[in-house]
């Protein structure tokens, strides 16, 4: 067992973990943050995407011990003071989700994409989300949702 200290969604946790414990299991089983999902066992599906130190990663392919000292953001930590993140809003407005299982990972991946490329083309959105599988939407409305968020974020920034 190894002791780790992590900050998840602004809350500091110190936990004893087995070295082999996957970050996704740590979040789900130890911290009860079940918004981060598991959809595959080979790092393809992206249902488990979270941010470590501001960068999107697949939490199924990261060990919890590797995160000692890290700042982690999960889907539960994306909205601020009850205000949805523009991506969350976009997914809702544009019907970017159906069963919702891929959605947390998809939103977290899209958030990283928009950080690097605030004004992506549709093609850039599609390529930027290659690490996330959705079986329900055919992606059309996911692309619309991300575009909605990009526009909204640009408008907010312009207003600031």
């Amino acid at each position: 067992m190894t002791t780790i200290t992590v900050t998840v969604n602004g809350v500091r946790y110190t936990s004893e973990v087995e070295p082999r414990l996957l970050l996704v299991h740590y979040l789900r089983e130890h911290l009860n943050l079940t918004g981060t999902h598991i959809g595959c066992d080979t790092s393809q599906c992206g249902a488990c995407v979270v941010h470590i130190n501001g960068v999107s990663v697949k939490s199924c392919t990261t060990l919890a011990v590797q995160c000692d000292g890290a700042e982690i953001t999960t889907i539960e930590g994306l909205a601020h003071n009850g205000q949805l993140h523009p991506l969350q809003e976009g997914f809702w407005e544009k019907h970017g989700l159906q069963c919702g299982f891929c959605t947390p990972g998809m939103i977290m991946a899209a958030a990283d994409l928009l950080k690097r490329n605030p004004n992506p083309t549709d093609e850039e959105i599609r390529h930027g989300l290659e690490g996330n599988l959705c079986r329900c939407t055919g992606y059309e409305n996911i692309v619309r949702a991300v575009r909605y968020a990009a526009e909204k974020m640009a408008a907010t920034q312009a207003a600031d």
Partner: protein
Amino acid sequence: MIPAPFDYYAPTSLAEALTLLQQHGDDAKILAGGHSLLPAMKLRLAAPSVLIDINRVAELRGIKVNGTVEIGAMTTWSAIEHHAALAKACPAMADAVGLIGDIQVRNRGTIGGSLAHADPAADMPAVVLAVDAQIHVEGPNGPRAIAAADFFTDMLSTALEPGEIITAITFTSHGPGEGSAYAKFPHPASRYAIVGAAAYVKMENGQVTACRVAITGAGPKAERQTAVEQALIGTDGSADAVAAAAAHAGEGMEMLGDIHASEEYRRAMCKVYAKRALLKAIERAR
């Protein structure tokens, strides 16, 4: 989905990592980005009893670009992808890195980890062959450099000796008249290369004076395509010349075949992708 148990070490210096590797010998695996190793462990296709995580070894990270490019082994794909000077110094690497996995994989995966794993379908082996990179390693007997051409020995096998860790990759920055490119046929599911071709050319006075081409994905290991190179050097690099030269791609190479691409098809695609990479490299060199 669950790896078998292991002991975990997270050294903060290369020296410490080398000592740990020495201590644990064959039972140990180095954990770099983990995007090949951890999935294999989750499926229990790999079960090392010790993991030495070198993500905290700061000295192994970083990119330096002047006349020479030096990339620390633990530099992530993402850092490479977003390095403007590097993209200029070696467009083939920029082409290739943007096609590796997905953003999340590139945020974790490292160049050193990938080269050490030597997946036959990885992209970067073709690029390091085409730019004639040196792969710097350090082990119990001190540091040494291995030419990319000598590094990949077989499927998932390299010239790394037990106890050695890759520390950096170096190669010469492209100068005037030099160009490179990477063209890829991705696997529809894994997005590894079914065939990937990296090409480097030097053009002087409208003539190809130097050329290196390497193919990955098609065979058990990435390989230089000397017949293509020889056929192209001395030509004007026209589309016809390139097509004629690229027709030699895959010659003498053992081909892999699977449900996604047969040996015959891979062999044909070697020619197509070598041609596409060369045309792009020549365009950039002009």
